[in-house]
């Protein structure tokens, strides 16, 4: 079970003289899966980067276990919270085993040595992502789906209670998308890991998330259960798109069918 709490209070953040997030409040449900959705450039990545201490807020704060995250040492934060950035880059030639081992970084100081527990953590991460047989391969030779699993393995090797992922399924074909989301759900069920992820596909978000967060222009537009958030009005407000919502015959969760200008019966 997740022991750590994460919340956002009146968060204002941006780059240079541009403000991207305009006062945002969010309580992450411990031990649950939260999906953040919103149009391109509405500030999803900026929110995730602020929540994981990468970006310092202009105003407001992010609290990890009740303490301001930006006042905490980065290593301490990284021991309880992992982040997989949007499209991370692997150094040329690095092997899968080496990359996944980097996930152990926050658990080591200048002098500490690699331990059997580190090997076990890396192995467990490879097994969970079914990448054991790739261990000695170079990351830049892998397919997109394999590579994404390897990056997730690195975040898993970090063994954090909180895991933030920025578009972990983008650029994957549909079967790999489902596979990644199943994997994260397994992790959530088995270890109680709190998952917060940015997703592009509304239907997959509604199916896999316990809690859905919709953003518009750097503000929180709606949050709650998928049933409460995935409504035609919200889709219109968030994406400027007409749609119909029907129950997903497989999961019973809401499912969005877009309505365009053509091919209407």
């Amino acid at each position, binding site marked *: 079970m997740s022991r750590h709490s994460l919340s956002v209070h009146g968060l204002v953040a941006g*780059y*240079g003289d541009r403000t991207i997030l305009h006062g945002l409040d969010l309580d992450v449900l411990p031990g649950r899966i939260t999906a953040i959705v919103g149009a391109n450039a509405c500030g999803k990545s900026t929110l995730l*980067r602020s929540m*994981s*201490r*990468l970006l310092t807020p202009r105003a407001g704060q992010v609290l990890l276990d009740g303490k301001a995250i930006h006042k905490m*040492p*980065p*290593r*301490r*934060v*990284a*021991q309880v919270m*992992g*982040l*997989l*950035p949007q499209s*991370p*880059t*692997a*150094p*040329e*030639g*690095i*092997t899968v*085993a*080496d*990359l996944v*081992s*980097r*996930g152990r*970084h*926050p658990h*080591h100081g*200048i002098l500490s040595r*690699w331990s*059997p527990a580190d*090997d*076990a953590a*890396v*192995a*467990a991460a*490879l*097994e969970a992502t079914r990448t*054991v047989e790739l*261990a*000695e391969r*170079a990351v830049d030779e892998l397919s997109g789906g394999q590579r994404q699993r390897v990056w997730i393995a690195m975040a898993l090797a*970090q063994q954090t209670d909180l895991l933030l992922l920025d578009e972990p399924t983008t650029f994957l074909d549909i079967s790999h998308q489902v596979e990644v989301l199943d994997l994260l759900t397994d992790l959530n069920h088995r270890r109680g890991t709190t998952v917060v992820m940015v997703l592009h596909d509304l239907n997959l978000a509604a199916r896999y998330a316990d809690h859905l967060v919709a953003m518009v222009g750097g503000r929180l537009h709606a949050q709650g259960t998928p049933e409460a958030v995935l409504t035609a009005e919200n889709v219109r407000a968030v994406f400027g798109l007409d749609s119909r919502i029907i129950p997903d015959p497989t999961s019973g969760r809401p499912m969005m069918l877009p309505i365009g200008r053509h091919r209407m019966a």
Partner: protein
Amino acid sequence: MTATLLIRTGRLRRARRRMAVIGGALILLLAGFALTLMQGQSFVPPGDVLRVLAGHDVPGASFTVGQLRLPRAALSVLAGLSFGLGGAAFQIMLRNPLASPDIIGISRGASAAAVFGIVVLGIDGPMLSVLAVLAALGVAVMIHGLSHRGGVSGTRLILVGIGVSAMLESFIAYTLSRAPSWDLIEAMRWLTGSVNGAQLSLALPLLVSLAVFGGLLVSRARDLESLRLGDDTAAALGTNVARTRLLVIVAAVGLIAVATAVTGPVAFVAFLAGPIAARILGPNGSVLIPAGLVGALLVLAGDYVGQFLLPTRFPVGVVTGALGAPYLIYLIVRVNRAGGSL
């Protein structure tokens, strides 16, 4: 369970290969060092070399080995270590082999200040070295400041650095054009690296710089290595990115500047050492220490070649420059094509 075993054996194999590369480089360096003490214009047998090193007076060898060859070899190794470590640190930090201090104007800053000091201010000795070190630091700060726009991007810093380097180059040319001929010889030492007329006393500042700055870099090797994953991933893994960058810049510039003050900017050693070491080492851990050793080998071997294996004598910087220039062209062509990295 079996996966754990697999990870463990893979890790141990990487560690073994790494130790083999480092050990091999050390042996090569030691052999090269011994060789340059024995063989030069004349041959001095190993026994005599050892007696000189032990402080005995050996007629016919004490001067050649003790006063000429030993200072030369010692400064070559120490300066080479400094160039190799400092250059690789920049390349790793900015994820680009072009980001070496001799490409982005930091070494040029030291040269320009020294030439200015000699020709315009008329100073020399330690004062001049201090001026050169300060100028290198100043150029580093300036490049960093100029390329800072909501975070420093590696590419921007490299481009700004190349521009600054070109400006300094023309400043040097202008200053030299106004210099009296007797200053030219002294100024030349600051333009092409050389260990001619090396004195053993100059090993001390290099040793101190290696202990302080080199020690700092090596102790930060793991954080530095994490920067190769990108700033966001490194930060998410608990690396204090801004502080690591600052420490690495200060330490690497310190190493480069002090070495430049002693030997002049031995061309392209900082630039070449990292990529050569990376090629030899493969994906087996941080390239930092191997790059230091490769740097030392480059200067030692380059000086030997320049002294004895070419028709006329050349300072070491000419030899390493001839080696580095084609590689620079190759890199620019390749990076232009594929956006590659170290």
